[in-house]
């Protein structure tokens, strides 16, 4: 836990336009007292990283429902490394098969929240791990 308000960028990378879940999460985290910046649809990884730097966030949450979670996350992690943004907490949510969770974690994703995740689990995870 910390005193400073958590700033989180909720991002919708790629071409997938299913934003019901991401907008629910954005409202949830805002109601939980965090500063939420939502990117809107069709973001490239470059745009997401730029926004993260500009907005000086300590968490990035990616919402991916198209099945392209590996290529997108890999690209994001690489670019964050290039910009030496190593202390940003990365979480991924959406239609992620359980068998892919470990693979995403190996890429550096700290938390994976699949469809139907408990609200309090998401909030607690971010509050404990963002710093």
């Amino acid at each position, binding site marked *: 836990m910390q005193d400073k308000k958590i700033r989180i960028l909720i991002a919708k990378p790629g*071409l997938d*336009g299913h934003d*019901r879940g991401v*907008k*629910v999460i954005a409202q949830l985290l805002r109601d939980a007292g965090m500063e939420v910046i939502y990117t809107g649809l*069709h973001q490239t990884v470059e745009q997401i990283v730029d926004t993260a730097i500009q907005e000086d966030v300590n968490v990035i949450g990616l919402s991916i429902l*198209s099945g*392209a979670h590996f290529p997108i996350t890999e690209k994001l992690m690489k670019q964050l490394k290039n910009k030496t943004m190593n202390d940003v907490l990365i979480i991924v949510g959406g239609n992620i098969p359980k068998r892919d969770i470990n693979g995403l974690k190996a890429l550096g994703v700290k938390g994976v929240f699949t469809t139907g995740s408990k*609200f309090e689990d998401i909030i607690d995870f971010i509050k404990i791990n963002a710093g």
Partner: protein
Amino acid sequence: MRGEIVKDTQEKIKEVVLESGIKVKPVYTPKDVKKIDYNKDIQNPGEYPYTRGIHPFMYCERPWTMRQYSGFATARETNKRFKYLIEHGQTGLNVAFDLPTQMGLDSDDIRAEGEVGRVGMAVDTLKDMEYAFEGIPLDKISTSLTINSTAAILLAMYIVVAEKQGLNPEKIRGTAQNDILKEYIGRGTWIFPVEPSLRLITDTIEYCSRYIPKYYPVSVCGYHIRESGANPVQEIAYAFLIAKTYIQRVLARGIDANDFIARISFNFDIHGNFFEQIAKFRSARRLWAKIVKNEFNATNPKAMMMKMIAGGGGGGLTIEQPENNIVRGAYYALISALSGTQTMALCSYDEAYTIPSEKAAIISLRTMQILMEEMGLCDTVDPLGGSYYIETLTNQLEDKIVDCMKKIEGRGGIVDTISKGEIQKEVSRQAYIYEKMLQSGELVKVGVNKYRTDEKEERTIQFHEYDPSLVKKQIKMLNQVKNTRNKKEVSSSLNKLRTMAHTDKNLMPYIIDCVRAYATIGEITSVLEEVFGKFKEPVRI
């Protein structure tokens, strides 16, 4: 979703409120329906206002069309799945396109990376569509193209494929989803700003009404609006407002309401309370007939008949205990048959995880076939008609839909409220409230917040494996086409399209010329984007 809230009250009977806000009484009697005038409000099937169905004998004469959504990887793979489904008794096709195709990007575009062939078939040029429909006669099988911002391009390709099969355009049957306004609310595959997008849709409707009279150029989708969080009343109200917008645009081009409104169909969602859904469709059918007759002064009864595809909705299916989705699908199909739909589609039980496996797709198809051929659903029309409860709900829902439409019209109309992001905000607010009720257990979802079992893995799901090598195949084919096409023809047709996009002429003939010259979907979209610009999403949470 149970789709209703049950509150404990002081009294013995619990209070039940449906998603649309209607309170359900424990018992309905003739008193509830005594104000209904059968001849005026309900009427026999096939007669205005078509509450009981648009045809006099409905399924007795012609059962519903079964149209499962399918398509993946390349056109060749999709062609195989199409043939497999037709072989198993499917009576119509519903083509899924990958996201780059839906967003107007070629398979070799950097923005398409990781997405080629993933959620549907990849299409770069006419060549892909030629392969997809090889050996499938387009005058015999009706095809639905699930495509929106690039619908004009895909429709153009479809027309040219039919032409190459030697068919007269008058013979082509099928539907293009082509409903851009709902893409701004849900689903999100928009490219251009609202106005030029509306122009493209108007162009396709006008073109079809003149040259492809059997084609449905638009399927207005309440489905995705509801899947994004809207309640059943908003689903119908917003869809009707959107349909009215398209109609007004086409009327402004001097086309007679009687000539084209009949070719606008609807796509609605099924999940939630069983009876509420059935009443929703019956009330929608009646209201649409009134709108077309009274607001557009149509006299052609066909224009007043609301034709629809009802989709057993993905929003009702669950990740948890996926086999339960087979049962849910069966109920959704039953709702759909009791609602008098023209076409039925079911999300498959594994769809919360993956592109449906062959097994899951066949279970969905069999579900509909069992209903059609074993259960007597085709023996008599609208078997629930006259039920005190159903007729009361039908009336109440109609009132609520009318009310909802009036409110939006009073706020500047659907185009304005979508452009400002207001509708989107309303819908996502509702999705949030809904999710909170689900998490608190106020809304019951079996296997999710009740009767839950902990599963370590998705043992029973057979994942559709994405094959990265198909991208190479797809790009190779794209390059082959690029190398063999007539470059002069490509650039002159694209230049012509650019010039015409600056005018207010119908763009369909020029898009058809580009497609015929094997211009790519990315090339055509870029030309249009140069002229039209890009939609700026009003992000409001």
